[in-house]
């Protein structure tokens, strides 16, 4: 191993990036643009107004509960309440006509002793409709005030161990997105740039020099690791930071960055993403062996990247996956990065946490395996 040759490969990659501003822009601006878009969608989704109708079929201390529920709901932000009625079929029709998003029904047997409440939605998009529920739950909890004396109240409670019940979807997605972007871009860029070495004849030329396969892989890791490092630093700063820009002349005040709270040390989060990215460099080199054109490298995205997005804990916890898929998820590097990032950024874990350590060790192991595979296949003759 000759460090000078590793440095030569590293410097060459840096020089190549310097002369390719579009790729640099892809690396640094695209994640910011996508995360900003995601943040925008998620935040405006939460501030959208849900129309709620109340149907009162109960005969017990009737109007009182219904109107208290109505006023409690109307105090929730993002909810607009129709005056309560007793006509359920009319309310159902309003649902079908998209005039209301949710119908709260106090059933005939509703009483202070039996505070059972039914919630009715359209069912076309259960997940989307569920986004109204937290506000309704909150309002129902507020009904305590109306419950006469010491009668039981609707007990709907929401509690979280980490973060807060008020945490937005963005807060829990942000750590994941940071890791995923690093992985995706590093894989794509190394895969394509190494393929270009193969088809452009420069790999042949490299292998005709005394440089070893390990030195090439290491130089690549340094080069792409360097750019991935910058990318993660920028993305983390954008996600975690929030810089208020005061109004200046005709330009209104605005803020740069999302200001997502992090409970843990961003440096540990960064370390996790870096190791993940180093694995992606070698995976890119390794898989470029099986591609003949740039298009064929792109074809690895649905095979390599998308499953990691689906199974890695991005959307669903590993434990909720079908049992056949759980072992698959457990060999994917992104799974460990996402878990580690959540532990650090949401639960505030540090390197003393066995779970974070395990994630880190597994990621290092996976990166080492990919590096060995990459070094072993560099010489593979393109026949």
């Amino acid at each position, binding site marked *: 191993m000759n460090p000078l040759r590793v440095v030569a490969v590293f*410097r*060459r990659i840096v*020089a190549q990036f310097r002369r390719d501003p579009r790729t640099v822009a892809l690396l640094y601006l695209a994640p910011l643009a996508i995360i900003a878009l995601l943040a925008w969608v998620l935040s405006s989704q939460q501030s959208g107004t849900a129309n709620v109708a109340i149907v009162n079929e109960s005969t017990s201390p009737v109007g009182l509960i219904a109107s208290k529920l109505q006023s409690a709901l109307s105090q929730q932000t993002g909810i607009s309440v129709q005056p309560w009625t007793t006509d359920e079929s009319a309310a159902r029709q309003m649902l079908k006509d998209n005039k209301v998003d949710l119908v709260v029904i106090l059933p005939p047997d509703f009483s202070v002793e039996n505070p059972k409440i039914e919630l009715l939605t359209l069912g076309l998009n259960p997940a989307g409709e569920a986004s109204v529920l937290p506000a309704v739950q909150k309002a129902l909890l507020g009904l305590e005030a109306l419950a006469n004396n010491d009668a039981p109240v609707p007990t709907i409670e929401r509690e979280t161990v980490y973060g807060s019940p008020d945490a937005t979807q963005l807060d829990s997605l942000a750590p994941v997105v940071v890791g995923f972007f690093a992985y995706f871009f590093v894989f794509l860029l190394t895969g394509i740039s190494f393929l270009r070495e193969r088809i*452009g004849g420069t790999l*042949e*030329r490299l292998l005709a020099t*005394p*440089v070893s396969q390990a030195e090439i892989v290491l130089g690549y890791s340094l080069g792409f690791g360097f750019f991935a490092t910058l990318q993660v630093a920028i993305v983390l700063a954008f996600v975690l930071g929030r810089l208020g820009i005061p109004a200046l002349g005709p330009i209104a005040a605005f803020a740069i960055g999302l200001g997502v709270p992090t409970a843990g040390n961003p440096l540990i989060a960064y370390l996790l993403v870096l190791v993940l990215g180093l694995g992606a460099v070698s995976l890119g080199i390794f898989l470029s062996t099986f591609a003949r054109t740039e298009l064929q490298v792109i074809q690895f995205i649905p095979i390599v990247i998308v499953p990691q997005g689906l199974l890695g804990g991005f959307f669903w916890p590993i434990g909720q996956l079908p049992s056949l898929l759980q072992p698959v998820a457990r060999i994917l590097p992104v799974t460990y990065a996402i878990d580690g990032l959540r532990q650090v950024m949401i639960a505030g874990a540090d390197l003393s946490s066995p779970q974070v350590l395990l994630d880190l060790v597994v990621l290092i192991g996976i990166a080492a395996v990919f590096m060995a595979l990459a070094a072993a296949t560099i010489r593979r003759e393109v*026949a």
Partner: protein
Amino acid sequence: MAVAPIPETRTTTSPPPTPATPGPAVEAVALRKDFGPIHAVDGIDLSLPSGRIYGLLGPNGSGKTTLIRLLTGLASATSGTARVLGVQMPSRENLAHIGYMTQSDGIYPELSVWENLSFFAALYGQTDRAALHRSLALVELDSRAGTPAQDLSGGMRRRLSMACALTHHPAVIFLDEPTVGVDPALRVQFWDHFHRLAADGATLVVSSHVMDEADRCDELLFIRDGHVLAQGTPGELRKRVGTDNLETAFLSFASQAASPRAAESAASPRETAR
């Protein structure tokens, strides 16, 4: 027309060289490379003493590039042995003494001339900036040091590619079609330089499919279908078939080699008709 018998193109028949180093610079023993059913290199024996320019001549697909890749250790032989400077290939350490100019330019298009040259030089351990500048001057690219390689003309890229193969002063130099796309004036300079390198003791193996360059080589190897048809100085080869045209000579050797092979296809194609 009387056809002179072709001696076996074995090591023994090569003309007495000027032995600069003990043993041949480039050696092959029963070297063979198969790609599936195709015998790209079909049992070649070579012994090339140092300090000379050897021309590998043959049509496209005759096995020249594969032979060079075997000799540099870039391809692994199906059977047989390749040695350069007495060291069996592949040997990564030995590559420090070998220069290889590939058929494709093998340079990074987005990098500048200087960045390309200094990168390859660094891999060979050559970091002397003055030496790099001399290499650039030699290929007349010193005024283009900052130009990205993709903005160079085809001939300029070829020249850069050559500079990248030579900056580390290799003792054995393989040049795969080095003058393709290079204008005639510069081509003359290239060959002058090749001769200077050889005079300094370097061994050059230059492949080409154009015969007009052949006369500039000290010795020629006619290659076809993975075999060495004939080996000798340009003058010798012409004399053997009684022609003053190397192209005619090649075709003559090729047809002689073809006739026995038509009968027993791969048995011993180097045997020649009488």
